[in-house]
């Protein structure tokens, strides 16, 4: 096959910044799953460029119907687009796949909605990059941080951190945190074995059962700036059920 230059690429002019982003790859890939996040994604990307310019960014557009992908492309980051909506877990898995194929050492799961503060990235990534552990979780509850979740959400978090604690014999205070860093070997395993729908408590249990070392890193989070959370679409009953079952399964299933 002859290497083709992106001459025919839709909106890349000659010598555009899209090409420039290819020059050198960092060791860390920030994976941003995004579904209809045109309201908050640009700000998130700008912030990342400001505070974490050394990391590469991949936006996984999970079947958005708005300008999410275009806005991301305009900012010169890589964008992979799902033709249809698959869910946040599948989007993350796509990011993992991309990271493994492109040889990144660490993949960071980062929310598009502005909840996550890029200034905590160094603290999150460093332990994984240095091989001290395999997964870090940016956690709101390790120390007192500014964030107060709604009551039901807090209750749910309490239950799942209990389940995780029971299964892992390790306390994870914030099982639903969407700010995490994964070592490459973790991302490789996740190609084959990955819980459906929501990548939180069941994923942590499955990973810990494989012997990966998890660690929580204190962060503070903000209110989302726009758009809607992946977690609120009438899933308030299904989610706890599914997550409890999946946690239980992750606990007793043989790893694939």
């Amino acid at each position, binding site marked *: 096959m002859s290497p*083709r230059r992106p001459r025919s690429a839709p909106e890349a002019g000659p010598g555009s910044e899209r090409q420039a982003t*290819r020059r*050198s790859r960092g060791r860390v890939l920030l994976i941003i799953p995004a579904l209809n996040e045109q309201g908050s994604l640009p700000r998130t990307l700008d912030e990342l460029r400001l505070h974490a310019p050394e990391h590469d960014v991949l936006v996984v557009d999970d079947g958005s119907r708005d300008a999410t992908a275009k806005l991301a492309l305009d900012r010169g980051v890589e964008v*992979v687009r799902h033709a249809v909506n*698959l869910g946040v877990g*599948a989007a993350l*898995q*796509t990011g993992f796949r991309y990271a493994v194929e492109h040889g990144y050492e660490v993949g960071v799961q980062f929310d598009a909605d502005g909840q996550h503060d890029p200034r905590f990235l160094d603290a999150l990534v460093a332990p994984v990059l240095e091989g001290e552990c395999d997964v870090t979780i940016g956690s709101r509850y390790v120390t007192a941080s500014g964030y107060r979740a709604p009551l039901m959400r807090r209750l749910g978090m309490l239950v799942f951190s209990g389940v995780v604690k029971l299964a892992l014999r390790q306390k994870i205070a914030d099982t639903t945190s969407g700010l995490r860093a994964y070592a490459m070997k973790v991302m490789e395993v996740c190609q084959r074995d990955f819980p459906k729908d929501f990548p939180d408590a069941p994923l942590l249990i499955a990973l810990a059962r494989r012997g990966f070392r998890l660690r929580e890193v204190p962060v503070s989070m903000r209110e989302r700036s726009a758009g809607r959370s992946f977690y609120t679409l009438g899933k308030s009953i299904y989610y706890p059920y599914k997550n409890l079952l999946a946690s239980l399964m992750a606990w007793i299933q043989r790893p694939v």
Partner: protein
Amino acid sequence: MEFISRTQIIVALAAVGLAVFVLELVRRRRLGEEFSVLWMAASVVIAALGFSTPLLRLITRILGMLFESSTVFAVGLAFAVAVLLYLSVKLSRLTVEHQIVVRELALLRHEVERGGGPGEGA
């Protein structure tokens, strides 16, 4: 041929009708052979119960059912459950496969638009 009630005849004929319909769907390639198996089994068994009163009585006694009609319902329900469970399993697998295809497509499209594959470049 002896029948217990008119309902039995109706059930038996309905089962034959279902079998014919299923076969017709397969013939027109609207239904895969694989999926037709359970449906055919259901209609054959129910037709057999409907046309053979001794068989129906025997099975009713073995199962301890109070009425012959309950036996037919029970058998029908068992097949319905089997079909639904089978479909759920199929659907679960299909969901996973569908995810993989969408993912591959997304990554491929990204590569094509970028020009070149992951192994390329610095």
